[in-house]
């Protein structure tokens, strides 16, 4: 049976301290991600200007678990839609309109549908914001080209076996053009 796994809800980790290498092509970043995975740098990340296909497999990131949020939020919205209309029309304020049944549920379908879609959509987006750590206006930008045409490989200090000079030479060896060591003190 297909069940949600915790690692599917991978969270964005702040990039405070570590090594950043810049790459020029999507192929280069996929290659770099594969090598970083082999090296087992836990928590490493790639920074991309657009979703590069194949990067998830290269990094070993599991498929996002957000459809589960949509599924349960949809059921929640649907239940609210049914209960709210039934309780207000048949219990709290029963109103006889042309002798129709108080629980004329066919007429409830449009609103049940809209509430299902609404809560499924909104809760999924809320979950996305939570997992991606947005909105946060005070975030530091590592390199301006990363949202335009270059690709970054980020290896955080927290990674197992992190050794600054070793990591720098590792990233350089992969063909990283600009390799910078990011430290909290030289930020801003």
């Amino acid at each position: 049976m297909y069940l949600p796994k915790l690692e599917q809800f991978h969270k964005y980790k702040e990039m405070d301290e570590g090594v950043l290498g810049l790459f020029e092509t999507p192929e280069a970043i996929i290659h770099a991600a594969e090598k970083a995975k082999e090296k087992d740098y836990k928590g490493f990340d790639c920074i991309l200007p657009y979703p590069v296909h194949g990067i998830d497999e290269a990094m070993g990131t599991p498929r996002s678990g957000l459809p589960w949020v949509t599924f349960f939020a949809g059921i929640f919205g649907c239940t609210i839609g049914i209960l709210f209309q039934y309780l207000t029309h048949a219990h709290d304020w029963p109103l006889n309109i042309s002798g129709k049944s108080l629980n004329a549920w066919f007429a409830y379908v449009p609103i049940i549908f809209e509430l299902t879609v609404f809560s499924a959509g909104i809760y999924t987006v809320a979950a996305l914001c939570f997992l991606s750590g947005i909105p946060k206006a005070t975030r530091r930008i590592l390199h301006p080209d990363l949202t335009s045409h270059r690709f970054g490989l980020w290896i955080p200090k927290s990674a197992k076996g992190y050794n600054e000079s070793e990591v720098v030479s590792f990233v350089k060896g992969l063909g990283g053009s600009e390799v910078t060591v990011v430290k909290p003190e030289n930020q801003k």
Partner: protein
Amino acid sequence: MSLTQAVRDKLDIPDLVTGGKSLKDVTVDIAKPNEDFPTKLWWNTFLLVLTITLIDVAIIGYLFYEGLYLLGINNPVGWGFFVVNFVFWIGIGHAGTLISAVLFLFRQGWRTGINRAAEAMTIFAVLVAASNLILHVGRPWLGFWLFPYPNERGPLWVNFRSPLIWDTFAVSTYLSISMVFWYLGLIPDLATLRDRATETWRKNLYNVLSFGWVGSARSWSHLEIVSMILAALSTPLVLSVHTIVSFDFAVSILPGWHTTIFPPYFVAGAIFSGFAMVVTLMVIAREVFNLKNYITMKHLDNMNKIMMVTGLIVGLAYGTEFFIAWYSGNEYEVFAFWNRAFGPYGWAYFIMISCNVLSPQVFWFRKLRYNIPVMFVASLVVNVGMWFERFVIMMTLNRDFLPSSWAMYTPTLFDYAMLIGTFGIFFTLFLLWCRIMPVIAIAEVKTVMPQKEGAHH
């Protein structure tokens, strides 16, 4: 994009981004209209539409100070232009969601050039439509009564069996899901503008607007899934919204309105008019912002084809309505349709037919599908025709069961001012949006670039 450039060339698949652009060129080209000082043309157009909007707002104020008697509405025609405008603008909005959601689900790469502008068009059109919905109730300051909330008047709830309440829920859900879908796609592009900004105020503005987006692969993987989910949610939503709008009419017992063809017929009409509006806007945008490499002739060609097909569907619906009216043997139904075509508003009916059914037929010819002036005129004509379609439906009210209750509807200057005002509001919002946000989805265009594959060879 799994095909390599060589295969694409062999199969003669046109590039979605022409001009041999690199990733950086895409960013620079698309961000240019946001970074440069607005041109004279932009200012002139903006001031014109802003003036129309301000006049419209003043007129709305006066209208509600004086009362709705200033409008042409009467008994039996109690709805008038507000509802014509409401249905028209909601319909315009639908193409935006269709382009971004349905074409996304069908993996149509060509949507990336036009989806952003189409989505923005949706939001503004739905806002304009919703304002007409609120205004047509006559006392708009009590508009909040449409929402169910625990109030101080005892256990008094809205009537969930009323199409007006269905409209409220459908339109507000549609507006919120479309806005979220649109903004979610904008976040990475706003981050691009933030990183390119040189002035501090601009950097701060885009920093706030972009929510602090970094572009981490982990966030992208969530974002892609969420885009897909929202696309899958908005597709039935589009159908439901216009279906519910058609229920406003179809659940009545009026001849000519009480028909099961209404939901699909309205949805087809909505797509038709929406695509016409997208063509109008895209033809202008690619000229003004110099985006011919991103909104290519292929994009316009595809949209023209869709316009032609939906035009045929709408034509079929007109025919079906007539046939079923005759076939039903119901004399009120037969009369309603005879009156539509040959009654006092027959002129509107024939404007509708010639604009909606005849004019899109020019797109059978490839030469005309690739002709900018032809498609521009055709798209305007279709919009006129679709507005008249809603007008014709509304005018069914003027002659119902009893000849003693028949009355003519004559729009007043206030009605026309409201109509022009809706265009003013729509274009003011659209022009402002073009200034501060990218008109083309920067990140998404990059994913369909043909050069990408060849980059490492």
